[in-house]
């Protein structure tokens, strides 16, 4: 840390500020200033889509599974997924901050977004299935269960951030020493020798483990829109239709989140370039990892002392 010169601190602060701005944008605070009406319009569009989906489910119930209502339902579910994921949300915050910290190829980012969206859809199917099986469970138990899942998700995010932070700091420590000669793996957590003096890149397996952690952290909080459509179709005796709709919604969500993920890796690349121009490229992963840990902790603290649902 003592080697961290003043420009490094300045560049670090700059990246942190950029990261915080991204977080604020994601949380919608910037949306408030820019276009307060957009969120409201999105909410109303979702409401309309919901009404339309209800009507289509009724039509399927009347006319059967094979026909235009089923096709329209699938198309509309896809649109609903896009709309539903455009607003602020924790899953997107987690994925964006992780990618901002880790960087990666665009293909990787898109894949992470898609798998996370599908995991949330699958989790919704699982949650409704479990709920149907344990009908009659006391509400306090469910309430604490939901909160525990939420907290677990955020703690996992904080854990991934800390893990990355340790890796990034250690990576820099090794770079502090003379490393002009050894080609042994000098980053024990990566198992891969990194080019000297460059930002240490974690090994592919390690990245995969972290990405799996992100998917799990996002996925254990199932998609609410999917749960609503599943419960609605379950009540109509058309759960299979609900599951198909959920898959389409997840696909729609994946598209929105993928765009965001691409933005995150592009921002990361810009920060890296700016950082290495300023000679402080090594500070970028440390600050990015700190951001992920902070996002997890802030979200976790936010769950403390929350009241139960109003209805």
């Amino acid at each position, binding site marked *: 840390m003592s080697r961290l010169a003043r420009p490094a601190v300045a560049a670090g602060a700059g990246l942190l500020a950029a990261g915080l701005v991204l977080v604020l944008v994601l949380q919608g605070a910037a949306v408030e200033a820019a276009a307060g009406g957009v969120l409201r319009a999105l909410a109303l569009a*979702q409401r309309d889509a919901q*009404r339309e989906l209800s009507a289509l489910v009724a039509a399927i119930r009347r006319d059967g599974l094979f026909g235009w209502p089923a096709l329209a339902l699938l198309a509309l579910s896809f649109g609903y997924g896009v709309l539903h994921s455009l607003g602020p949300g924790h899953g997107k915050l987690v994925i964006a901050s992780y990618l901002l910290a880790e960087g990666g190829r665009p293909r990787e980012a898109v894949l992470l977004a898609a798998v996370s969206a599908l995991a949330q859809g699958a989790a919704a199917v699982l949650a409704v299935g479990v709920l149907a099986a344990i009908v009659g469970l006391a*509400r306090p138990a469910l309430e604490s269960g939901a909160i525990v899942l939420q907290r677990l998700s955020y703690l996992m995010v904080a854990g991934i951030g800390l893990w990355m932070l340790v890796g990034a700091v250690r990576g820099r420590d090794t770079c502090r020493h003379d490393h002009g000669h050894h080609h042994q793996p000098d980053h024990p957590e990566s198992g891969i020798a990194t080019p000297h003096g460059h930002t240490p890149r974690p090994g592919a397996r390690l990245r995969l483990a972290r990405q799996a952690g992100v998917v799990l952290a996002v996925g254990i909080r199932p998609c609410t829109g999917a749960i609503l459509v599943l*419960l609605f179709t379950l*009540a109509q005796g058309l759960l299979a239709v609900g599951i198909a709709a959920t898959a389409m919604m997840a696909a729609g969500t994946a598209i929105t989140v993928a765009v965001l993920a691409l933005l995150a890796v592009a921002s990361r690349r810009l920060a890296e370039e700016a950082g290495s121009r300023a000679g402080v490229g090594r500070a970028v992963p440390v600050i990015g990892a700190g951001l992920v840990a902070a996002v997890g902790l802030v979200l976790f603290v936010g769950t403390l002392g929350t009241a139960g649902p109003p*209805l």
Partner: protein
Amino acid sequence: MTAVLIWGTSASGHPHVWIEAEAEVRFEGGTITAIGLAWTFDEWFAASLLEGFDLDGDGALGPGEIDTLRQETTASLADYGFFTHLLIGGERSDAVAVADFRIEIDGPRVVYRFDVPIDPPVDPRATAFAFALYDDSYYVDVAVPGPVTLAGDVPGGCAEERSEDTGTPLYYGSVFPMLIGISCP
């Protein structure tokens, strides 16, 4: 119960429940003594209630199940002021207790009816009286699409007057609740 599942998966963000409310302001001797409210839920949330509280799994809510729903609902709504926020003589307060909470189920339709007592009663000719129906976490969107009914001994000329409650931004400031005032010139 399923409501918990829906809520637990989304600590913030888009409204997940939509209520269309009807309101009746009741007068006695020229003063406002209560607001009668009827909430109609959107089909999805109604389905989740019907699904979640059908404890015996017979496909319908019997009197006992409705009673369980009523008890759980009133207990949790109490923490949210029953989404009924009052502005009387410039003072803000939330409904703390409601009377006569009833749940009506008609096929897929679920309606909650209850009264918010105004105690002490307010004479709107002397004291500014207004109320707004909203959930400050914006988990639930509450709309009052139709006109408010004024019932009982309404002083001549009293009418509802709506304005945006700009002091109460919801959902990152994209929504402001509708403040419904009773003005008697």
